[in-house]
């Protein structure tokens, strides 16, 4: 009676432990972006790399969709993804891209854009990288897709490729 009960409890315990280990094996250890989707982006104020113009989250409300893209001239994967950004603004008129130049020198950024094309309707500077933390960025390239209520629809970690581009197309229909 009492013995049987404790045996069942112990066996149950052991089985659940082992099952959770087994399930844990199948889990993916990579970055968790689920939480951010549905939330609103932070309030911010950034300066342009070209002049003393400022941009805040209020400005983004005017766009139907905005892709906030973190990039730098010294970042190799950023060079690879850049053409997809250019494609994005050429093919879709309801989305604008805000470029945030991360830990970079303004001249290098300008050269980068002259060479590879400028898909950004505004390029903000983030020389010390602090702004990236406001957006919950891990590294570059990284992009956040928001709608005009500033709600996060998707967070893309790593360079945008054809597949991710098509997904963006689907999301901004």
């Amino acid at each position, binding site marked *: 009676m009492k013995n049987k009960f404790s045996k069942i409890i112990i066996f149950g315990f052991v089985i659940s432990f082992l099952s959770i280990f087994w399930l844990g094996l199948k889990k993916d250890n990579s*970055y968790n972006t689920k*939480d951010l989707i549905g939330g609103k982006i932070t309030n911010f104020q950034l300066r342009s790399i070209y002049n003393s113009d400022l941009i805040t989250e209020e400005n983004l409300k005017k766009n139907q969709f905005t892709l906030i893209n973190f990039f730098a001239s010294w970042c190799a994967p950023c060079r690879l993804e850049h053409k997809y950004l250019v494609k994005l603004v050429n093919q879709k008129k309801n989305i604008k891209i805000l470029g945030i130049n991360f*830990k970079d020198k303004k001249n290098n950024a300008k050269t980068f854009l002259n060479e590879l094309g400028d898909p950004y309707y505004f390029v903000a500077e983030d020389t*010390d*990288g602090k702004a990236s*933390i406001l957006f919950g960025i891990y*590294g570059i390239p990284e992009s956040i897709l928001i709608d005009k209520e500033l709600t996060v629809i998707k967070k893309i970690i790593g360079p945008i490729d054809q597949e991710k581009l098509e997904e963006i197309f689907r999301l901004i229909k």
Partner: protein
Amino acid sequence: MILRKIIILYFLLFTCLQSKEVKIDLIEIYKNLRCLVCQGQSVADSNSDFASTIKLVVEDQVKEGKTKEEIYDFLISKYGEWIVYQPSLNKNNFLLWFLPYLILVFGGLIIFFIIRKSKHNKAN
């Protein structure tokens, strides 16, 4: 006699101590933050870019006069709970904090009953 010698030795040992205890809030905060792009290192230990950026942000906030909790809350709102090494006391983590003490109490009870039963056995 021996005790006296030991006490003297003790004081000699302590004259070697460099200086008083220092409270270093920044480093304590860095130690409590996980470097999210590293494999199991804190922001204090990591040499990564991400860690240095986080350090800048934390420094700024400390200068602004924010408390530790406010800084942690800020970073948790951006990156989720797992950026902080000290799990907070909420419904998710309740078991985590509660179970060890439960086991402590449980173990103590077992020992208590064993001793009581022994007294009982001895009495018989």
